């Protein structure tokens, strides 16, 4: 476990400590640097233990104290089981329908964006979960531009975060309302993606992490399911749609291996249920039909467990990371350049190159 690294980057970082002329005159302190050394590993006795690895425990403590935030958006036509899936994922009534007191559910004439927040806790870990629902999406006769209000909402969250970030008096922890993940529900036609699906995912995959799922997958046989998935993957590739986990953000070989496996399974064919049934002496979440009971968490029946593991148990931090260090940064660059251009025009200076965020 001993490795000594020579690091030219550190030296560069050290020498970049000088400050641009507009602000302060550079101080006359030399910045010498060397990088070497490792603490001799365990084996020299107890007293050679420094205790650096205690920082892991310190971080864990801090994380437990602060709690986590997660914002998930669900997008899909009415009747695809979005609310049920959310409830199944978080094993509680977190969906909008469970919160709202409406007796009958009418399909709205326009797209609404409704978000509901919950504080949930598990084994001492507290999480603020926000589920953002989009009733009305894809339900109109003319669905042109139905992605626009959703894009607008997502960008509005980025904007809000940005505003807070550039404040002079900033909050200690900027509340994060940015959409970390957008679950897109594909109706189980078994054939291929509809133009609406392609259009939506193409546009949204540039601003948010999209996780496509095949909804109500219990209507497809295993062969139909595989064929459908294959078709979908091909179409995504053909249209240049990058869904989560995006290939370009794989950090190292290990990551790539894990993510490649996931990419081969996307989109997950899921079934949701918040009702428990007795199966083989155990109470399980499932859907009971005349020909059998579909166990939601049984991977032989559907891929709900994979989705849950991906979203919650293994990749949650990564999803949030990509949102904040990539999607948000792209938005920020565009915003800052926008303003630059406006000012540049006023000064008659050449324009900066702008990244395009289509609406």
């Amino acid at each position, binding site marked *: *476990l001993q490795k000594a690294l020579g*690091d030219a980057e550190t030296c560069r970082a*050290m020498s*970049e*400590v000088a*400050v641009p002329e507009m*602000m*302060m005159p550079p101080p*006359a*302190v*030399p910045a*010498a*640097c060397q*990088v070497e*050394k490792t603490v001799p*590993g365990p084996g020299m006795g107890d007293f*050679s*233990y*420094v*205790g*650096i*690895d205690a*920082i892991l425990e*310190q*971080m864990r*403590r*801090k*994380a437990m104290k602060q709690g986590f935030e997660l914002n998930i958006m669900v997008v899909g036509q009415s009747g695809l089981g979005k609310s049920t899936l959310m409830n199944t*994922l978080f*094993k*509680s*009534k977190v969906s*909008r329908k469970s*919160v709202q007191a409406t007796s009958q559910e009418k399909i709205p004439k*326009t797209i*609404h964006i409704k*978000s509901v*927040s*919950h*504080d*949930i806790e*598990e084994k001492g*870990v507290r*999480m603020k979960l926000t589920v953002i629902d989009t009733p*009305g999406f894809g339900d109109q006769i003319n669905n042109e531009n139905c992605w626009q209000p959703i894009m*607008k*909402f997502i960008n509005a969250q980025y904007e809000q975060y940005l*505003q807070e970030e550039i404040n*002079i*008096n900033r909050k200690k922890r900027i509340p994060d309302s940015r959409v970390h993940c957008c679950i897109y529900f594909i109706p189980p036609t078994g054939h291929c993606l509809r133009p609406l699906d392609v259009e939506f995912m193409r546009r949204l995959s540039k601003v948010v992490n999209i996780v496509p799922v095949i909804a109500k997958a219990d209507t497809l046989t295993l062969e139909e399911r595989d064929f459908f998935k294959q078709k979908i993957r091909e179409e995504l590739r053909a249209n240049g749609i990058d869904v989560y986990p995006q290939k370009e953000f794989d950090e190292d070989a290990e990551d790539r291996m894990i993510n490649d496996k996931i990419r081969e399974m996307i989109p997950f064919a899921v079934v949701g249920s918040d009702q428990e049934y007795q199966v083989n002496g155990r109470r399980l*979440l499932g859907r009971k039909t005349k020909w059998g009971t579909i166990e939601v968490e049984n991977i032989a029946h559907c891929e709900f467990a994979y989705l*849950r593991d991906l979203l919650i*148990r*293994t*990749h949650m*931090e990564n999803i949030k990371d990509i949102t904040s260090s990539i999607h948000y940064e792209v938005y920020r660059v565009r*915003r800052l350049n926008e*303003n630059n251009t406006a*000012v540049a025009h006023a*000064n008659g200076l050449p324009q900066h190159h702008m990244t395009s965020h289509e609406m």
Partner: protein
Amino acid sequence: MAATEIARQAGEGARAVPLAGHVGFDSMPDQLVNKSVNHGFCFNILCVGETGLGKSTLMDTLFNTKFEGEPTQHNQPGVQLKSNTYELQESNVRLKLTVVNTVGFGDQINKEDSYKSIVEFIDTQFEAYLQEELKIKRTLHSYHDTRIHACLYFIAPTGHSLKSLDLVTMKKLDSKVNIIPIIAKSDAISKSELTKFKIKITSELVSNGVQIYQFPTDDETVAEINSTMNGHLPFAVVGSTEEVKIGNKMVKARQYPWGTVQVENENHCDFVKLREMLIRVNMEDLREQTHTRHYELYRRCKLEEMGFKDTDPDCKPFSLQETYEAKRNEFMGDLQKKEEEMRQMFVQRVKEKEAELKEAEKELHEKFDRLKKLHQDEKKKLEDKKKSLDDELNGFKQKKTAAELLQSQAQQAGGSTTLKRDKERKN
């Protein structure tokens, strides 16, 4: 296009919802920790203290490795800060440790400005981070954070009280960095003196309003140990990299003729306490305080100084960018004005000089004319004179010719006359 309606429920009133089963997000802290482990950690310590107080030795002892080169001389002209970065690894944790040393602190005859280079250095690190944060295309994720997380202030073991240099320096640093005061080479002080010394130091710090770092007591897991340790500040430490055999173990110690001071013996010195607090319990908190308190303060002051203000929410977009541009234009405008002014002045000067030269030329011309006239006058006079002389000469010549003629006539007549005269004489 459909109109949209954004309705937001809950938020502040987020409901607490019970879970009907195991969801699995209790793995979040693990996910977070794994990410950090992959990324590596960095920690930056600043050691402030006079030369010879054992700063380097203490660092070596704390981190169990031999860090730097030779001890520094005492003849430095000013306070310099030397920083070195090391990659340490323990089990699966990689730590990028930067140790910054004040070289020459307290060695000058006039120590008024000693603290300045330290404050400048700390500010420079903040500035570098701020610059990165303000960039358009930024890479905060892979930025090597050089901000100082902890400042170990080494107090000389006089046994009496703090030196005024110490008070002044600590006062200047307390709003910029987490200060942990320690009594260096504390094996020079006896136990009873040490207690009195600590009390004196603490009371002096309080009465001078110096804010030293308090170990956090809000988390129950560590509140107790932290508050106990807060009472032991400043830590009296002894550093040593040499090992001595005590009993059947080799321990780090300093050997004297009258006994051996064991570094890790809590009865002998507070080294273990320092290591415990600095590394094993509060390293993360030190980093957090640096970022959320000291850095934010610096950022706020810096931005306000540059003229940015938090205006009302409506025209907020990029008040930063706009104000920056406005300031820049103002600056350019000033620059241009100055340039104009200089140009004007130059033109003015040139004109003046030209006029002067013209004047001189004119004068010269006049002089020349005068002299010429004078010359002509003289010439004329001379010519007149010459003429009159000529006239005279002519006149004289005429007279002479006339006279000669008369003479010759007279001679002829006079010949006879002369003859006559001669005859008369003869007679």
